[in-house]
């Protein structure tokens, strides 16, 4: 079962449980009528438990997701990496064509004109990492490619009528040399903590 199937399964299970509750409650109108006061008496007890359970559940999920946030700790940001600038513009990406396997890449993503997105799709067509490409700012995205093959970067923020054709194909190869550094202007604004796809549950 791939990541997309797991995600859909989780959503469908939750949606099915919710829908079942609604259908069951609607079905109950076929049963003999119950006094509203009696319904409320029992309902308030269930509601209290639901509220408590949902609150604790949501808080648990919140704390459970924190380790998977793509915003790296300052220590992780200092790890060695191949710095690769990515410049987005209507309607192309300026970036290298080849990347090495199993080497940490730190994409420095910015835009020359409007807001763009920088989404990386693996050879199976799965979206494995992304960040926004903003004018006047640089977003740092750390990615380590563990699988050789043909990858595609697609724009994931609407940027004009050529938005759908804005993509860049690149390959990841074991023996490929390191990408040549590209000239770029010093950004006027940066974040200090790079971001990463390295600890996400989809990888």
């Amino acid at each position, binding site marked *: 079962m791939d990541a997309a199937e797991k995600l859909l399964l989780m959503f469908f299970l939750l949606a099915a449980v919710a829908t079942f509750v609604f259908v069951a409650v609607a079905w109950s109108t076929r049963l003999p009528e119950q006094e509203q006061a009696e*319904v409320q008496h029992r309902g308030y007890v269930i509601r209290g438990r639901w509220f408590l359970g949902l609150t604790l559940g949501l808080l648990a999920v919140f704390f459970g997701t924190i380790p998977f946030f793509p915003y790296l700790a300052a220590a992780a940001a200092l790890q060695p990496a191949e710095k690769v600038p990515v410049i987005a513009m209507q309607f192309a990406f300026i970036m290298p064509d080849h990347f090495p396997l199993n080497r940490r890449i730190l994409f420095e993503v910015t835009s020359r004109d409007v807001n763009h997105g920088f989404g990386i799709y693996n050879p199976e067509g799965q979206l494995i990492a992304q960040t926004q490409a903003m004018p006047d700012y640089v977003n740092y995205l750390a990615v380590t490619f563990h699988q050789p093959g043909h990858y595609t970067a*697609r724009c994931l923020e609407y940027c004009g009528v050529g938005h759908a054709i804005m993509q860049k194909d690149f390959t990841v190869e074991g023996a490929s040399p390191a990408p040549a550094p590209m000239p770029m202007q010093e950004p006027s604004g940066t974040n200090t903590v790079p971001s990463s796809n390295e600890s996400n549950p989809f990888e």
Partner: protein
Amino acid sequence: MKAIPSNNSSPGRGVMKLYLISGLLVVALMLPAGLTMRAAQAGWLPALPPDLFYALLTLHGAGMIVALAVCAMGALWFLIRRHIELNAPLAVLAWLLIMLGVVGVVVATLVGRFAGLYTFLYPLPFDGNWPGWSTGVFLISMVLVNAGWMIWSFQMIGAVLRTCGGLRGALAWDYVWHKPAFQAAGRQPPPPEALPAFMTGFDGLIAGMAATLLGVSLLVRWLDPRVVIDPLWVKNLTYFWAHTFANLIIYMLAALIYVGMPYATRRTYHTSTVLVVGWWTSMVLTLTNYFHHLYMDFVQPGILQYFGELSSYLSALPVTAVTVFSALMLVWRSRTRWTLGAIFMYSGLVGWVVGGIGAEIDASVPFNVHLHNTLWVPAHFHTYLLGGCLLFVMGWVFLLLESRSARETSGIMRWLIAALSFGGMIVFLLGFYFGGAYGVPRRYAIEPAPGPFIAQFATIGAVIMLIGFTLAFIEGWRLRWNRADDRPLWPGELTEEASHGE
């Protein structure tokens, strides 16, 4: 609290009809626009050029959000007017400003081919291949819509403050914290529908002020291209306004549940402490949820990303534990007559919850990495706008029509409408969810695989749903045609109950 008599010719009903009919008319025009785009993505309309596609997308997005908001505003205005006198000409002025804005958006998109989308992220409106005048017309139109919205928000806040005797009364502060003394004094808390009215008015004003700042900034940039605005600042402002405005639609419509579901289930619904606290919570969280739109902007201060996820999660609590749970308690083993009005309104709750589940998944940062700006986003907001908001509005309209009609919709007709509308809607929405899970980007005139294949199913689903909606329209017309003037006007009798309770 003095009740205002309500009848078919009263200004209250007139304003509601004006808002509802115009809002639903715009919805009816935007539905085929959406179908056209989905058919184009399916590859069945290859002649649709990208500039027209994106102009249609801009029109569809702005049109639908504004139309559903107008429906909700009209119905809530009417409900509040049952409790206190409201200035009808002012409500008509607000409506006029909004409709002028809608006409302007139509001109900017269909004539000027403005395609900066409903969210018009700076600096795109000034960097597109459309003429500069269309950008100006679009921005001015949105400012007009916002002006109408703010007038309405002022009216709602003023009405609830006057009805409840100030801020403490509007927030039911003493009712929650000093309940024995409050009840001993013979005081009444605000009616349930006053809570969404105050909350949406209050949050609406704050969002409206942000929108004014945004609109003025962009208009200045339009007039003087030398002006430079910080893209991150304007992005925050844009999503703060757009997200809050879109969210408030369903919160306004919660008032219809508080009045409509008791009518359908023949039970009563009153303000409780839990309801009040739930609305306090929603009032705060609705303003802080928008941060989840900027998860992929890593330059955004990190603390806001964490806060965005927590806030998004917690907003599920008042919705499910208060409004939805209360509605379920009203229905449980009641004598509900499952008319079309009741079916639509109840089904809208399912759309709200299921759309909310999709939204909560997307609001989880680790999942957002893989879902941000994929079709998962339109999946969840179509679920609660189409399967929630629109169904609430349709449910409300049908409850009104059914209450006055001598005609009763046959069982076959009800099943046919429900099966076509909901069956088609589910297939249509599944297209978005599957596309999103498989990483198909949103807002692509031509989608990468498997987008076009999925869009074919979605298009068929949308056609089936529209057939169901058409049948619903015909049935609504027949109910209206068979109106029985001697029947008691609903929800007029509730007004009498309110006045007797004093």
